[in-house]
């Protein structure tokens, strides 16, 4: 799955650690999601969507 997490994080001037704290996950999880190595659960994707006030489908896209 591709995502725009890194771009949105930069737009909001957040570090990976800041975003991890806001989403209540580890910094390693943010790094893995940004690199596309780990797909977040639906509940975490909703958290991201609410935090950045963007629809889920504009943040996460199917790689196919």
């Amino acid at each position, binding site marked *: 799955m591709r995502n725009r997490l890194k771009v949105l994080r930069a737009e909001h001037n957040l570090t990976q*650690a800041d975003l991890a704290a806001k989403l209540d996950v580890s910094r390693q999880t943010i*790094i893995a999601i940004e690199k596309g190595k780990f797909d977040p659960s639906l509940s975490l994707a909703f958290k991201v969507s609410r935090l950045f006030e963007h629809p889920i489908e504009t943040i996460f896209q199917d790689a196919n």
Partner: protein
Amino acid sequence: MGAKIDAVMAKGLPERDKRNANRVNLWAFGWMFSLMGNMILTKIFDQGAGVFWVLIFAAHIICGVMLVLSYRRFLSQLDEMERKVQLEALALAVGFSILVFSAGSVLDSVGVLGKPDAAVMVVVMSLTYMGGLIIGRIRLA
């Protein structure tokens, strides 16, 4: 390289996960020391050491049950990527241990090797579990 080491050491976990992990470690130490206590007492006293032995055995069972419950709680509240790593490592440890022991049983039945005992199983499972954790964390870093 630093990022990989941070990943292997599971740095940056939320405080809740660190607290839960510390609880698991505490019960694991209690379980291990009570197991050692039981084994030492059994070696010293051939017929068991009466009430003292029963107390340490009860402590061993209680620590074991608390270890399982605290690990379950740790897993259920854990950061979701670390949970995936932990579950994959557990699956690897169980699968590999079954393979080792089934192979050991076959070799025992034809007299090539002696049957591996429970202590070997604990070591095999622990090492495979640790290996699985390291591989999983490096893969996702």
